[in-house]
């Protein structure tokens, strides 16, 4: 009898554990949904974002935080998208940024064309 109950409970327990472990996708439109990390990000967190339109061009400011006490660098680039979710400009070149230990810094970017209405931030730590 005890074995039978365990047999029923075990799969439920396993499913509950699995569901607990799975990370839910970030809500659409949130700052996290705009960030595309290429691999695991080491010691750098991407925080709040400010998006505006100035003189017809989309401008973005992104907060970065170095969680380590050591200086850390990372690579990044923006991809600019149109209303249909597809790129409206050529690929940007990768750029490198260095953050001092525990520093919070801001990236700022301007869209290359007025048609850009959305963006993705690709990030990678070395």
């Amino acid at each position, binding site marked *: 009898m005890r074995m039978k109950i365990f047999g029923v409970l075990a799969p439920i327990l396993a499913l509950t554990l699995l569901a607990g472990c799975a990370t839910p996708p970030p809500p659409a439109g949130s700052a996290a949904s705009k960030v595309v990390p290429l691999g695991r990000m080491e010691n750098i967190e991407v925080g709040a974002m400010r998006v505006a339109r100035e*003189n017809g061009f989309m401008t973005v400011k992104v907060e970065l935080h170095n969680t380590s006490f050591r200086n850390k660098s990372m690579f990044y680039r923006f991809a600019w998208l149109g209303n249909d979710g597809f790129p409206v400009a050529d690929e940007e070149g*990768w750029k490198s940024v260095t953050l001092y230990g525990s520093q919070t810094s801001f990236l700022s970017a*301007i869209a290359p064309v007025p048609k850009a209405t959305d963006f993705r931030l690709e990030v990678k730590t070395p």
Partner: protein
Amino acid sequence: MLPIRLCSIAAVALLATGCVNNSPTLGSKNISYGDTKAVETVTNEFGSTDLQMIAESMTRSLAQSGALQGRPVVQVYDVKNKTSEYIDTREITTSIKTQLMKSGTARFASDNTDMQSQVDQLKLQNQSGLYKPSTVNKTGNMLAAKYRLEGSISSIVKRSSDYKDVFYKFSLQLIDVESGVAEWMDEKEIRKTTER
């Protein structure tokens, strides 16, 4: 006996397919195409990443500034190279022109290098008598530039036994031709350090 024969046929077939080149490449495996947008740190001389960063930063700053209202005609002058190294500054101006053109914010008058070809073509059309008159482009209709775009790049190089530090500063300004007033200016700084 039969399984052995079947196995050997399968092995031969496998080897034969393994030898077929299905890859759309030809040549040495030591040569490959790389990412043109990658951060290049082969040496600390002026490189592709510096060119891309300067052009991108300047273009976007100018396009978004609002200084170029109504797609004005701009004359671009060659960037003055004040560094100690050879830099093809024409490529910087070409990249800036291309990106501004793509952003739809400016039009460009024939610059120093294009002007001779432009004049030659107009002369040929108007003076040679070779062309059908209705198709000939008239002289005296070229658009004059409202603004001129001028830039310079300079560098400070410092060396010690352990370090080589190069600091580049690129400056660009947009000047109203009629008034001589600078309507927009920006600069981009780049530091590259090599630790020996």
